[in-house]
């Protein structure tokens, strides 16, 4: 169970208090009418799905009710930072990928 530092409350809390809300920094197109159907589909549904660091949106649902961002490794699950909406992440490149979890995990 993750232990997540809420940048508003200023302390770490158990994952139970939070709700994940998908990839962070997906801005709503300013002029939806100018988007093709395909572009609108991509805005709604196409996401980065890396093995490595990913910027995510989280809600501190049981705490301060604020959304914030987290940079989390999708294999080790390590959270390298959390930051408020409107702030920029400090970590972005994919760090060294940890060794596979399983003995020869599936392709």
């Amino acid at each position, binding site marked *: *169970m*993750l232990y997540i530092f809420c940048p508003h409350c200023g302390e770490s809390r158990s*994952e*139970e208090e939070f*709700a*994940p809300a*998908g990839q962070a920094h997906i801005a709503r197109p300013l002029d939806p009418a100018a988007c093709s*159907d*395909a572009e609108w*589909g*991509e805005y*709604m*549904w*196409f*996401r*980065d*799905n*890396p*093995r490595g660091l*990913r910027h*995510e949106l989280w809600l501190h649902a049981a705490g301060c009710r604020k959304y914030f961002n987290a940079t*989390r490794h*999708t*294999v*080790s*699950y390590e959270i390298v930072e959390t930051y408020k909406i409107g702030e920029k992440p400090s970590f972005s490149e994919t760090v060294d990928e940890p060794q*596979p*979890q*399983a*003995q*020869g*995990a*599936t*392709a």
Partner: protein
Amino acid sequence: MQRYSGFGLFKHSFSHHENWQRMWRNPTPKAVYDVVIVGAGGHGLATAYYLAKVHGITNVAVIEKGWLGGGNTARNTTIVRSNYLLDESSALYEHALKLWEDLSQDLNYNVMFSQRGCYHLCHNLQDLRDAERLVTANILNGIPNELLDTRQVAEEIPYLDCSPNTRYPVLGASVQRRAGNARHDAVAWGYARAADALGVDLIQQTEVTGFRKQDGVVIGVETNKGFIGAKRVGMVVAGNTGPLAAKAGFRLPVESHPLQALVSEPIKPIIDSVIMSNAVHGYISQSDKGDLVIGAGIDGWVGYGQRGSYPIIEHTVEAIAEMFPVLSRVRMNRQWGGIVDTTPDACPIIGTTPVKNLFINCGWGTGGFKATPGSGHVFAATLAKGEPHPLAKPFSIERFHTGALVDEHGAAAVAH
């Protein structure tokens, strides 16, 4: 291929089982194949088998970075059913179910497919409406499905708490009697053995690191053991779809999430069928070995760690104890996680990709295992003909651009 039978076992017992042949070879990769399939899970192996058997294409390699059937094939809760709501999805899963029914004989490998029935419990009035919708939709499509009332449910599922005093009383259930379980590992091994016998090369411990393209057309795969040429490439890599698609240069409406499951210690038979409850959030069956096999929910975040968060396990166990209070003193042995590739409409993506001659089969979410034969069958046709099989057509990537989703997810929260 050495034929398996009870008599064969008897015969081999006299030679102390020293003369059993390998189930598959360990071939050296050829320079070029007609079709290269990336990923030797159940779907990939089934695809190879049907390419060889149905389409006569035997110059096929299946490339696997680990071991055969080592991904979600080895980690699911082995439920097989076809009672999906929408015409497109029920057609696909029913196609699979029909193949399941003859699979052991077809492969000469007992995949232990047991049609012990699958119940979806209803706990509120909307559940009942959804069940009526599902059952009648299935009936129209020629897929038998029944709706039971509380009394019938109580009779058919002995230890289920059907009293009106539970937090969410059981108001009824739909039941697909042809649904059931199969032995997950056997499916991969049975397909592998049969495909190998037809000439397919199964290349394990070889990781695809990239795709070689010429003028936008894929011509083979780069691996950690060198380049392997291919006229067509099929990607069937549940749990690794995003990263591999990224290597091929495109993005998908797919997120990979942990899906957890757990088993009890083996106990004498007490649960005779598959019982699922969406409202209470748990599902359960009992394996031939006696383990209660229990499925938990999907974690809400992307994760490739083959493990998820503990509260998901807790909620699931609470649900099982609520449904079957007699199991409270039975003990949980082991938990684990698979990686499911989820799509916005909870339906797979099968077909072409932005890269010519590179085909994809992914996004099965929680439905992958039960679809294995059907998925392999339609994907083999897709690879053989270069265009989607009719049953696969509704499941193109383009639907996320046009909006023509096959929204199993939205239409009814019946997943798994």
